[in-house]
């Protein structure tokens, strides 16, 4: 996907194909010869891990779909059938349900890495925005998927989240009825959620192709935040990046396996093993952990419409990050002040997540309000001002120089 390829296959069949469809050259230039900055650290392996997780989710998902029944009377039972009767069904389902969480863990690391090293800055704005779109699609897919087992949390989660749209004046009510296909969350809702849950991962895969394309056009950012200048600054993707990504993928699988095999229900909620009951709402409705910070923002704001707008705004604002951050220097390594604020921001996000799981009452609401204000201030006030007032450290002349100085 980058530049012109000089790839010439040895095999005559491949040569024949290459003349007609240069797919070998595409793969070669994108994943073999593609130059990667030689100073990439392990935080850069999460892109590969994310592609791997997307594959895991699609494969296990397709397999689960062979045994699942999207009907309100049968959904819960069919999931239990998968867990009890289908050969290795328990394994496939736990891989899929925990895989969703792993996917989000990886994507959060990936996003925060991009923020720390300023990977969203010129010329990588489109790359970043495509990433935000993938993230949004992931959130939608995760939510739709959580509805499918049709437990108590599935049902009430679907009810609460779809009710976001009822906040819009005038169109709210008819919009929500349209989303549900009824007067409440019910069988039509479950059917369409299943259909969309199957569709969206392939949309994600499509946007991932664009994301990788954009990446290979502008090249990777790196911990030094400066562009490679000479051949000494980069190494070919294969074998250097592939073997490094592969090593981290296996390490990530260890982490994944720990959850999937030993504490498979840790990241879920016990209430989702109670079949959906439209007559009884669980005492504490909690979304999946990966939505918790946004859920805290929603609940921090006492007004319904403003709460929903803040929730959406807190994600949309990410797309404007390339322009909100006014600093010319990319990497936090050379931005002493930004580095502090970055970590404060991480802590704020973690705390918002913690608050999202707590009941919305008393001190919790107050803290959530303060942190929500900070969340937005980070983007709207701190980042624009930092770029103007921060005194940055001198940048190294080249990537290889920064590698050498780090060694010395």
């Amino acid at each position: 996907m980058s530049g012109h390829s000089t790839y010439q296959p040895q095999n005559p069949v491949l040569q024949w194909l290459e003349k007609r469809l240069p797919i070998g050259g595409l793969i070669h230039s994108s994943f073999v010869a593609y130059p990667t900055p030689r100073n990439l650290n392990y935080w850069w392996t999460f892109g590969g891990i994310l592609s791997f997780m997307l594959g895991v989710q699609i494969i296990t998902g397709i397999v689960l779909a062979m045994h699942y029944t999207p009907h309100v009377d049968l959904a819960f039972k069919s999931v239990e059938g998968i867990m009890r009767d289908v050969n290795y069904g328990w394994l496939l389902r736990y891989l899929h349900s925990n895989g969703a969480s792993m996917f989000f863990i990886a994507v959060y690391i990936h996003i925060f890495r991009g923020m720390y090293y300023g990977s969203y800055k010129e010329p990588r704005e489109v790359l970043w925005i495509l990433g935000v779109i993938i993230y949004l699609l992931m959130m939608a897919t995760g939510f739709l998927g959580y509805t499918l087992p049709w437990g108590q949390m599935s049902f009430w989660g679907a009810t609460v989240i779809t009710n976001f749209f009822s906040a819009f004046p005038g169109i709210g009510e008819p919009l929500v009825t349209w989303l549900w296909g009824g007067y409440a969350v019910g069988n039509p809702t479950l059917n369409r959620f299943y259909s969309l849950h199957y569709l969206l991962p392939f949309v994600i895969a499509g946007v991932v192709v664009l994301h990788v394309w954009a990446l290979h056009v502008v090249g990777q950012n790196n911990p030094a935040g400066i562009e490679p200048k000479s051949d000494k600054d980069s190494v070919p993707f294969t074998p250097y990046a592939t073997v490094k990504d592969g090593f981290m993928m296996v390490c990530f699988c260890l982490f994944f396996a720990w959850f999937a095999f030993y504490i498979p229900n840790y990241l879920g909620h016990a209430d989702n093993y109670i079949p959906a009951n439209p007559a009884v709402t669980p005492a504490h409705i909690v979304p999946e952990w990966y939505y918790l910070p946004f859920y805290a923002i929603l609940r921090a704001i006492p007004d319904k419409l403003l709460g929903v707008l803040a929730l959406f705004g807190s994600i949309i604002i990410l797309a404007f990050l390339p322009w909100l951050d006014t600093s010319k220097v990319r990497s936090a390594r050379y931005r002493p002040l930004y580095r502090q604020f970055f970590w404060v921001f991480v802590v704020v996000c973690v705390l918002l997540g913690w608050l999202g799981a707590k009941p919305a009452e008393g001190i919790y609401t107050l803290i959530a309000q303060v942190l929500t204000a900070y969340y937005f201030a980070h983007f709207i006030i701190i980042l624009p001002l930092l770029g103007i007032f921060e005194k940055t450290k001198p940048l190294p002349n080249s990537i290889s120089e920064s590698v050498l100085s780090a060694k010395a």
Partner: protein
Amino acid sequence: MMKRTILALTFAGLMAAAPAMAQDHGTPQPPRQKWSFSGPFGKFDEAQLQRGFKVYKEVCASCHSMEMVAFRNLAEAGGPGFSEAQVAALAAEYKIKDLDDKGEAIERPGRSADYFPSPFANPKAAAAANGGTMPPDMSTLGKARTYERGFPWFLIDIVTQYQEQAPDYITALMTGYEDAPKDFALPPGGNYNKYFPGHAIAMPKPLSDGQVTYDDGSPQTVEQYAKDISAFLVWAAEPHMLARKRVGFQVMIFLLVLAGLMYFTKKKVWSAVH
């Protein structure tokens, strides 16, 4: 340095403030029990599962359904360890609703492939017969109950693999029936239970000492019954737990070996660059 200080301060402050401010319903945490099936190498105690099944059959089953568990499951590997013949005989004790060749409703003796029949015709009938609340189905109860672990335990649980909130809670619930305190307004039809959130539980005290006869000499006490039924419910909710942990161990070993090899391969490949 600063980031760590901020992190530590915010966490410490919040964590200290939180429990004091959070509305406490006065529900004590269920005491931790020792379970044979906890941890990465845990295994079900067959005798305990068989006793728990006896408690289910003689006590719970009169009100609670368990419709996603089949008789055949009792003979499957990693479960209570009944033989196929025992299960067939047991299933035949039950009456299963079916249709005969002429389409007439009949009741026939159960087969291994049948699921445990429900004590009530349908959920509405179950609710009507039980003061308006259907006794929950027991198939997934062994993982459908939990309690707040709180900070930092919810993080420590990742490492210790503590997954036994449900059996701990169910055991506590079975043994938590008490006389209501004088100042507690018990709603009509409610029973006071120390561990039930809100304390007023619709289910009357189900177990009493000596109620179920054990053949293996285990104590016939409420406490023992409570542990046995809890263990049985965990198995009923997660019948493949032993297979999961066994495969998990194999996968972990494999991944560790592969990770080691990948690490050295990576080092070798990069040695030319560094």
